[in-house]
């Protein structure tokens, strides 16, 4: 990347920020006026009632979903899956087979819905795009020095462009947790805005890596920060850090997008990722989506699961529901 394009991105950053603020209501536009205002806004957010949040999450998790409702929940969850492979050992062959699974998760039951997207590293986007052309399944790519986010702005933006130019329709970026935790909110904000601009038409998901943010208050601040900077989705985790997605954290983020919608009229999405392996877990998340954000969010455009093994369990449970007997891992593909 040469000097001219750097300059160009700086310009587009400014214009993107301008575009964002132009649509915002006054108090939110004011929040992103400068660093100090942003800090004031984020620290002015109400504190999180940890006990209440965890109790509510645990309480809703006990809700029982059975029969037809369960089948609906399973199909909805399948349509929300971002089928993910983010390993150092990923090969084009593995990505191709994952794409085949994304197109038709259960070949014996072709009426089973396809997943929302396939999520890969930037260098494998090309392979996934070629496999998924014309299927309606999106291609998501992680970017910005995933998973640590420890690199320079130039490298992160180049990473993003690489993914977008290869045809990614969605970009999953990580925030600079070091900057966030040391209170340099403006820096994080600018970075998200810059990546947003580099994404072009691609959807931007901002990974907060809640496992490293330490407190619920920080999660709330990071969610608002990402929403202010123009994230289409806020995503919990990279999947590389434990704890990954948890129900309370997802409740919190769903609450943030609900409030955002109430204040701006814009619907933004949430994506829990990492550690969601069973249908039971997925159904608990769907209950949370319905109760915290609202039924409108029970849609792959506004809620996603970042997962790899979850899909197999969903397919097994789907068969169990339809066939009236328990299924086993021998009847789904190994990926």
């Amino acid at each position: 990347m040469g000097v001219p394009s750097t300059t160009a991105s700086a310009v587009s950053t400014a214009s993107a920020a301008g575009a964002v603020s132009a649509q915002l209501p006054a108090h939110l536009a004011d929040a992103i006026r400068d660093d100090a205002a942003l800090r004031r806004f984020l620290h002015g957010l109400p504190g999180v009632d940890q006990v209440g949040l965890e109790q509510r999450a645990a309480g809703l998790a006990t809700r029982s979903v059975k029969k037809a409702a369960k089948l609906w929940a399973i199909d909805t969850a399948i349509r929300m899956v971002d089928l993910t492979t983010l390993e150092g050992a990923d090969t084009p062959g593995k990505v191709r087979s994952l794409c085949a699974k994304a197109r038709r998760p259960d070949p014996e039951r072709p009426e089973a819905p396809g997943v929302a997207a396939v999520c890969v590293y930037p260098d494998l986007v090309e392979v996934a795009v070629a496999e998924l052309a014309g299927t309606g399944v999106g291609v998501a790519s992680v970017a910005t020095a995933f998973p640590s986010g420890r690199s320079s702005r130039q490298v992160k933006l180049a990473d993003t462009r690489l993914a977008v130019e290869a045809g990614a329709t969605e970009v999953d970026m990580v925030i600079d947790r070091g900057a966030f935790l040391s209170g340099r909110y403006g820096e994080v904000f600018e970075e998200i805005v810059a990546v947003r601009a580099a994404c072009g038409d691609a959807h931007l998901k901002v990974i907060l890596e809640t496992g490293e943010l330490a407190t619920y208050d920080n999660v709330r601040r990071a969610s608002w920060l990402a929403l202010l900077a123009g994230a289409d989705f806020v995503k919990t985790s990279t999947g590389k850090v434990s704890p990954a997605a948890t129900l309370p954290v997802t409740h919190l983020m769903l609450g943030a997008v609900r409030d955002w919608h109430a204040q701006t009229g814009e619907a933004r999405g949430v994506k829990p990722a990492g550690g969601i392996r069973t249908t039971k877990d997925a159904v608990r998340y769907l209950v949370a989506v319905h109760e915290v954000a609202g039924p409108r969010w029970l849609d792959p455009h506004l809620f996603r699961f970042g997962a790899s093994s979850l899909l197999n369990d969903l397919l097994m449970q789907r068969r169990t529901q339809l066939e009236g007997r328990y299924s086993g891992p021998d009847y789904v593909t190994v990926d």
Partner: protein
Amino acid sequence: MGRNGNSGRNDENAKQGKNVRDGERGGHTGHAGHTGHAAPAADGRLPVAKTYKLYVGGAFPRSESGRVYQVTDTKGRFLANAAQASRKDARDAVVAARKAFPKWSGATAYNRGQVLYRVAEMLEGRREQFVAEVAAAEGVSTKRAQADVDAAIDRWVWYAGWTDKVSTVLGAANPVAGPYFCFSVPEPTGVVGVLAPRASSLLGLVSVVAPVIATGNTCVVVASEERPLPAVTLGEVLATSDLPGGVVNLLTGRAAELAPWLAAHGDVNALDLCGAPEGLRADLERAAADTVKRVVRAPAAEPDWTRQPDIGRLRAFLETKTVWHPTGV
């Protein structure tokens, strides 16, 4: 456990009397297992009654359904409440068995033999307890119960000896007309659903479970419906015998309720119908055929378990893998 051992402690005697008298419902209160023979001791100690639970994945959970049922001796006298497993317990047991399979089937035959021998050792150490339980459950004399328990211990030793010999007996180096070294080796089938014999509560149970796990299978066992208590105690023996959790999972409850779920389960590879209810056997075979399970049919009448077995039950849950290896010349 807590609810049984502590909160119920004070009125233990009263409860027990009630259990015997009017066949108290047992129900969902969780005091699942007051043995009849845990009567108040002469020295004024409060009796410590045992709660009979399931044995799944190396742990002793209650049924997820919270149900228990009354177990009586052959004369109809109350012995204890046993957990009444549900289809979800069966499902969890299959998951535990599947999880345990790679490690157990991958263990060396020598190691499996050691573990099975260890089971015999532990059983020997609790011989008196088993004699009492078998005598109570089956309504036989102490002498007969002793003979049964001894035979059960010997059965473990017998199958322990077979673990590292079975591949020599059932495998082969095959003579072939080509530049190949061709050999056949027996491999475990996988997760086996076992419907334990209904009459012989310990010896019969051991005689069907030991051959299944000796060759590296893992199993989900539905214990005798009327005589489940020795099976639960056997679970305690297995839990302390270096047997990895999940290799044997013991369920107590209604065979007619649990068996169809095991027979149709996609992740169960074989089914031993030994103690299946007569009216259900054909249906179970049919259900098992849907997922191409290996099925061992039930004998017309329960066999005499005291007789020395052959390796038929070992062979029943083995698959033969044949490998053609180029000799390279």
